[in-house]
């Protein structure tokens, strides 16, 4: 199917299914029940799932295949957002020109940054990308470029947004004043009520979901292509690459640019859901986040980054809601003293302590489970299948699939 083998096609179907049925899957609890706080089927949260999925899939093309760890990928995310908002300002709220420009501009930046950073590998590369991203962040935050144009380009701390005084060349009376595609508003939502449940179907979400599916499909094709094979060879042994008559530089640069375009696309999507672009989107913390997502899910695996992005964004949202009252209700079956003790023990890790949990989880994954959630899943599957099947599975787990 679509030039994929059976397993990859299956994987694509799984991702497509998850994305298309997310409004149901993420809202398993009735709206009025106590468990409703664990529902995650809100349009803006679901949009974040898939947008960060696109970002992480692109990051994984670089890191997972070549082993080059970029610590500045959020720069392209921010560049994508700024480009899209500029299209809104100049042309109007139809998101398509913005999406195109965000990919093109981030590709140009990725080409420049990659050209310089890829002269080095290993630690140097990580630090160079980090330095470039921090520089772009500082430029955006102070709007240095705007100084030369006499008009704000990134609009500094305030962030770039659309004003009524902007030209919006193709805007007309009958088009909405918010992001849309040919009049169809991004934020339009249809709510389906089934008994005690309610499900939101958001146009913007489905647009992002389709892009994620397309982006994922492209990633599978790249993984399985001769180009993808060369990238894995770069990770494995650059010396042998050189002595096999292959020039590693254009390969790494090409994938760096592709990966930057994915990030730019994600940035453009973010702006399309909410027509704002701020410098904080480019800060190193944002770059760190996509690293966390990819490693947690499973770097070098196909589906890992999507799982990682969903996992982190879901728990970030859910953990934030767990306060002491919730904890007390969880442990209420215990005697009072014990209940308080348990609450005190768990308290640092939930609510605002989510980052502590995330940091610990991340360390554990790096130490014990370098293949991330995907490897964890495979190990569990092996246990279940028994020993004989397990030996067979070890062989397949070594091919970077799943």
């Amino acid at each position: 199917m679509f030039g994929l083998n059976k397993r990859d096609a299956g994987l694509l179907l799984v991702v497509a299914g998850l994305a298309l049925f997310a409004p149901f899957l993420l809202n398993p609890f009735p709206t009025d029940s106590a468990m409703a706080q664990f529902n995650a089927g809100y349009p803006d949260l679901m949009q974040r799932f898939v947008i960060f999925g696109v970002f992480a899939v692109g990051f994984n093309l670089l890191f997972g295949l070549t082993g080059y760890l970029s610590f500045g990928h959020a720069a392209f995310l921010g560049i994508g957002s700024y480009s899209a908002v500029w299209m809104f300002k100049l042309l109007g709220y139809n998101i398509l020109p913005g999406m195109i420009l965000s990919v093109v501009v981030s590709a140009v930046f990725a080409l420049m940054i990659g050209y310089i950073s890829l002269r080095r590998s290993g630690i140097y590369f990580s630090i160079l990308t980090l330095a470039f991203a921090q520089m772009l962040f500082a430029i955006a935050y102070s709007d240095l470029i705007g100084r030369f144009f006499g008009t704000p380009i990134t609009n500094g701390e305030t962030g770039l947004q659309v004003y009524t005084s902007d030209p919006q060349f193709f805007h007309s009376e009958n088009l909405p004043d918010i992001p849309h595609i040919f009049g169809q508003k991004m934020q339009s939502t249809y709510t389906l009520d089934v008994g005690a449940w309610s499900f939101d179907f958001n146009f913007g979400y489905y647009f992002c979901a389709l892009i994620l599916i397309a982006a994922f499909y492209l990633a599978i094709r790249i993984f399985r292509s001769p180009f993808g094979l060369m990238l894995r060879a770069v990770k494995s042994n650059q010396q042998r690459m050189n002595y096999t008559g292959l020039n590693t530089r254009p390969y790494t640069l090409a994938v760096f640019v592709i990966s930057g375009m994915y990030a730019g696309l994600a940035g453009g999507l973010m702006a399309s859901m909410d027509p704002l672009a701020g410098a904080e989107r480019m800060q190193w913390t944002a770059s760190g986040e996509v690293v966390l997502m990819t490693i947690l899910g499973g770097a070098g695996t196909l589906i890992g980054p999507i799982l990682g992005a969903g996992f982190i964004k879901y728990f970030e949202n859910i953990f934030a809601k767990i306060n002491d009252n919730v904890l007390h209700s969880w442990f209420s079956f215990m005697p009072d003293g014990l209940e308080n003790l348990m609450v005190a023990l768990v308290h640092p890790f939930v609510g605002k302590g989510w980052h502590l949990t995330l940091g610990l989880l991340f360390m554990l994954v790096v130490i014990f489970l370098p293949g991330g959630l995907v490897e964890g899943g495979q190990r569990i599957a092996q246990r279940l299948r028994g020993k004989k099947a397990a030996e067979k599975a070890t062989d397949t787990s070594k091919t970077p699939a799943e």
Partner: protein
Amino acid sequence: MDAIILQFLNGLDKGSAYALIALGLTLIFGTLGVVNFAHGALFMIGAFCSVTVQRILTLSSESLSATEKDFLGNPLKIKTPYVENWFGPEVGAALIDWSVPLAIVFAIPVMLLVGFIMERGLIKHFYKRPHADQILVTFGLAIVLQEVIKYFYGANPLPTPAPSVFVGSFDFGPLLGLDTSLAYPYWRLVYFAFSAAIIGAVFAFLQFTTFGMVVRAGMADRETVGLLGIDIDRRFTIMFGIAAAVAGLAGVMYAPINSPNYHMGMDFLVLSFVVVVVGGMGSLPGAVLAGFMLGILESLASMNEIKNILPGIDQIIIYVVAIIILLTRPRGLMGRKGVMEE
């Protein structure tokens, strides 16, 4: 002119902090071959040592005043720090006043211990893993340390004053024969002198002790030193502790300059990496030189005259310079051939 001199002086203490962190990073990198993304967190922990000592010294007993009453007529509660109870009001107050310098005594064992635990407990297991893994696990550790501090100390910056003797400024104006005054806070002078002393001590230690010689030899060629039958691993563990202590002490004394907050480590770390790369990976003098250079550059670029024309240039200039240096001198200012070339 005087403004430039002032900015130059201001740059010295930011540069000192960069130099001290970069020095530790280089030591760890040169000896263990590990890039420590948690090194900024060590700087931050050092700063919080100051906060902690100050809090300990100001722990107070409450008593009811015999004479004074509050507006409801109840006896007023008076807090008296225990140290004042024990040592008398004058000595006690002096101890509290001098809590930041006293924190040095507290911070040295704490930082050494933190360093040893980090190296033995975590970093050791990553020597043979890919560099990407080392970066990732120390990055995770940095997040954890940062969040732990945030949990115990909150998210807001905590002002930690210097001893009152050092409040006020020294006027460089007359000294330099200028008509205008050139006020420079005493504490910043202290910080610079302190940093210079530590940098000197580290170099002297490496230069003149047998231990230091072995470490330097190990930095140059680990395998050969290992062949000599010298237990290089144990020395490297100690070296990690020392690097942690250097970063920590840099943090302790920095507390009065910038109120400690939980994310200060990462803020400094990113720039310290740039410093290390500009100085030349693996070069200790390079780290110090680049630290001061970039600190002063940042300070000069933050002058209002320049910022009015080029907003934000103080944050940008360091990266621009770093990129230019790396393009023209790929090994940095003083980098040796063969260090991290692959």
